[in-house]
């Protein structure tokens, strides 16, 4: 199992390195500029986003004891969407403190959406399934709100909203990397510290409680940390589908056995997967870049079906 983990990590590192090189041939000083000022920061952003989405997916699946749970399920993405649409309907070119208004609003929306669900989760008597229902309710309510905003916005804002909702790694340069890194790093590092209590969750929430896990506190911590990381990602990239859902299942089938393996490996595989998908997006349609969200969804859905079908055999 150790050897297998090492091989997977090696594979991830190779994919990440390859992703920098993949693309149209680049030569001379212009090529150097594209590689160092555009591709490398983009790969770095992709790494953080993929790693965070995958880890949060794995943590939420453990927390809610539900294989379908992701950051989408607890209102984070839905909140971000409303925030982004709101900003786009106002004026997409505005900035706050030098940051795009869309990013700021999406971040605030994501935190607000998850906060609503988290306030419910901290109640002593709430069961995980109740929290999941609260997440779905918040998601439904916010998507109604989003439709309302779309209904009153003009066609240019609508187009921008559609683009945003596809999910795409932005060309943000090193400033974006610097903004994203601390938030994602704090979120991921602290989530990994919860591994031991999440492991006790594997045989059921009530049993974990009887074994000494402070369930409401764990739930609140995991939700808050997960939402913080995901909100920062979604704010820059829009909702990127399937990474949070597929990666943990992929790792579970490949390495399984323990959250001590599942959580850190989801982080690695998530980073490599998203960056690879983004490299694909550069290649598929020459001269144009597909939004990476389309690629992850197109690859993720069949992968998931394949994994489930194989697992049943």
């Amino acid at each position, binding site marked *: 199992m150790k050897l297998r983990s090492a091989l997977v990590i090696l594979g991830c590192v190779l994919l990440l390195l390859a992703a920098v090189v993949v693309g149209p041939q680049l030569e001379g000083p212009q090529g150097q500029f594209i590689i160092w000022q555009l591709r490398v920061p983009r790969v770095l952003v992709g790494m953080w986003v993929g790693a965070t989405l995958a880890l949060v997916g794995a943590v939420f699946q453990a927390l809610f*004891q539900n294989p379908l749970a992701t950051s989408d399920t607890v209102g984070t993405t839905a909140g971000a969407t409303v925030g982004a649409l709101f900003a786009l309907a106002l004026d997409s070119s505005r900035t706050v403190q030098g940051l795009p208004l869309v990013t700021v609003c999406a971040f605030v929306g994501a935190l607000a959406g998850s906060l609503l669900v988290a306030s419910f989760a901290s109640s002593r008597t709430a069961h995980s399934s109740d929290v999941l229902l609260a997440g779905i309710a918040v998601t439904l309510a916010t998507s109604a709100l989003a439709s309302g905003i779309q209904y009153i916005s003009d066609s240019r804002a609508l187009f921008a909203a559609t683009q945003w909702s596809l999910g795409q790694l932005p060309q943000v340069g090193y400033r974006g990397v610097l903004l994203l890194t601390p938030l994602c790093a704090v979120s991921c590092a602290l989530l990994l510290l919860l591994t031991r209590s999440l492991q006790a969750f594997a045989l059921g929430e009530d049993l974990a409680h*009887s*074994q000494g896990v402070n369930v409401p506190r764990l739930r609140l911590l995991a939700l808050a940390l997960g939402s913080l990381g995901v909100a920062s990602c979604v704010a820059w990239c829009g909702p990127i589908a399937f990474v949070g859902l597929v990666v943990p299942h992929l790792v579970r089938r490949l390495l399984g*056995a323990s959250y001590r393996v599942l959580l850190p490996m989801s982080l690695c595989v998530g980073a490599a997967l998203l960056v690879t998908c983004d490299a694909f997006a550069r290649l598929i349609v020459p001269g144009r870049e597909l939004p990476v969200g389309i690629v992850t969804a197109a690859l993720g859905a069949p992968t998931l079906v394949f994994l489930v079908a194989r697992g049943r055999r």
Partner: protein
Amino acid sequence: MSELEFVDLSVKLGQRTLLDHVSLRLAPGEFVALIGPNGAGKTTLLKAALALRTPSSGSVRLANAEVSALDAKARAALIAWLPQHIRAEEPVTSLESVAAARYRFRESHADSRRAAARALDRVGASQYAERRVTELSGGERQRVAFACLIAQEADILLFDEPANHLDPAQQLDIYRLLGELWREGRSILCINHDVNLLHQVGDAARLRVVGLRAGKLVFDAAFDAPALPEQIGTLFGVEMESVQGSEQRFLMPRSRSKS
């Protein structure tokens, strides 16, 4: 040693009363078998002892403190639980599952795994330590859950029908193990449907049997009390027949009581 005491405990779920003014004390080193028809409130009583159910009145005292006021890890040091069902959907290995039950201890993962291996050995489950819990049979899974309970090293042990759905040999093993843990000095509160299995525990003269029906405590008797067959019969609404075997007295339901 710590003791568990339910003091005039009532638990309500909406309008329904699950437990109705129940008072019961489990002294250190005692074995109490809790019996009663389905829906009598047996599982609710165990869950109340773990602070998984909130009393609507009365209280649950554990080592002279209100159980809901205890810190989660401090509570886990006092009381452990074998639930009726354990969830086995996550493909973790048996060993990792049992190691996770050591949550209350501040120790390295390697130490947790060593303790988990000992616990699995004790319940005769070493051979599937590295198998995933999702691949185990019902009986194997129950042994892994039992190993979790042992690995937690608590003073008071709660069992919710530990031999449910198991074949006769497994049932005997589980109850013999229960007896061993008891003789090591632990206190045990065990929900149980088949009182005949209690003979496997040993020391029958020291066993107590408590009957619960519709949330109320109906009787509290010694296992070898002559009146027990009739009390159990009344509890379940059946005619009980007592049959003397070569070593022990068996109780069997003969027919439904005429009301």
